[in-house]
């Protein structure tokens, strides 16, 4: 990072939101005019269980400073058990990322329901602050982006 650029740097965060809860929560935050940092780039997915861990790695490769995966609270999944499967998968995957030295907080997970607009704004604020503290991502980043 060149000098002078540091101060203007804003974290880029890719958020995978499940269609039925977290995306609707984000929508509600929007129509309710709740303020939250504009650092997120939302990708809507059918279910948190749809998020292949490879997507997270690809986001980091292609220049995301942080990744958030958000789905329905346990028991609320539109597909009944998609988020339970996701929970097992990411329990292992988050450990693996930490094991290889990806900083804690770079990749995060949350449950946000369709009614929790305030919570969505809080989660985004927290994740943005965590990633801001970590600084620009340097690990896993591809030099030549496709």
């Amino acid at each position, binding site marked *: 990072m060149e000098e002078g650029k540091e101060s203007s740097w804003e974290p880029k965060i890719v958020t995978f939101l499940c269609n039925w809860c977290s995306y609707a929560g984000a929508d509600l935050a929007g129509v309710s005019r709740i303020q939250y940092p504009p650092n997120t780039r939302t990708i809507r997915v059918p279910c948190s269980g749809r998020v292949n861990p490879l997507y997270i790695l690809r986001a980091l490769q292609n220049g995301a400073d942080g990744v958030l995966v958000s789905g329905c609270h346990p028991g609320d999944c539109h597909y009944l058990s998609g988020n339970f499967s996701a*929970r*097992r998968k990411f329990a*292992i995957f988050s450990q693996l990322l930490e094991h290889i*030295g990806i900083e804690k907080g770079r990749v995060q*997970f949350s449950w946000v329901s369709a009614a929790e607009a305030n919570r969505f704004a809080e989660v985004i604020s927290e994740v943005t602050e965590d990633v801001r503290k970590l600084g620009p991502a340097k690990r*896993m980043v591809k030099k030549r982006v*496709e």
Partner: protein
Amino acid sequence: MENLSKAIKEAARKLFAEGKVDLIIGFEEGSLPLRATPCFARNAQEAEKLIWNSGCNNNLAVYVPQKKGRIGIVAKGCDSRSLVGHLKEKQIERENLVIIGVPCQGMVDRKLLEKKLGNKELLSIEERPEEIVLKGDGFEETVKKIELLPDNCKTCKHKTPVIYDILIGEKVEEEKEADEFEKIKEFEAKTSDERWDYFSDEIKKCIRCYACRNACPLCYCKECCVDSSQPQWFGKSIELSDSQVFHLMRAFHTTGRCVDCGACVRACPMEVDLRFLNKKIEKEVRGLFSFEAGINPDEPPPLATFKPDDPEEFIK
């Protein structure tokens, strides 16, 4: 070892005579000492080639999903655990499989052996209990077998096959004391920067030959996502980041399935430490879901099931 070879041949002869199998997968003598090579015997005559020694390190379960018909297979502890995985994942029916179990005392690591020998050429060996005599032109050296064993054999807790139809030889005493996750625990104590540097330095060696994938009994997909170009899931460049993503996903695909047979590590021509990823995942699966791969064919794989109260401390 001689006795075991003889007993395997006898069992194979009997199986062919009774018409119970169409094929027996085992080991035959390779071109070099301690370099046994997989043998595919289709009749009793071919089965005479079957042998057993401390160089039978390949995991023969890798061939099972590719073969049709009724298969007999010579399996040591780790092979039998991989076979449990195949049964669980419906790669073969149990009635089409005859497992000739052989209790294993560890298989010699070729790379350690070569380091031990230096420039000397090994011409023959003699196996004794817990010792191996290495013989060549003008030298004869007795080595403790444990010095030549890879890490996964040293801490192996399933030396006797977990399932078998015929057991060759005596059951061996299982290791109880050794901590198989010792190295992982040491590694976890390091800082994030140190861990990243180690991971990067290891993966830098990778030449993307995919030998680790091909040797792995778990990688039986007809088309691998790594090879796919439409869509292209994986970057194919030689850039470090692309290799890292490949290795992370390769390891992640083994979650709750890897039995630590060491096939990937043995196959790697660049000596990349692949075990430090697989073993970490194995440790987490054991800790979070109390699951051990390759033990019970009826237990569902950990990522194909869930409990309502699974741990979720990592989720906001």
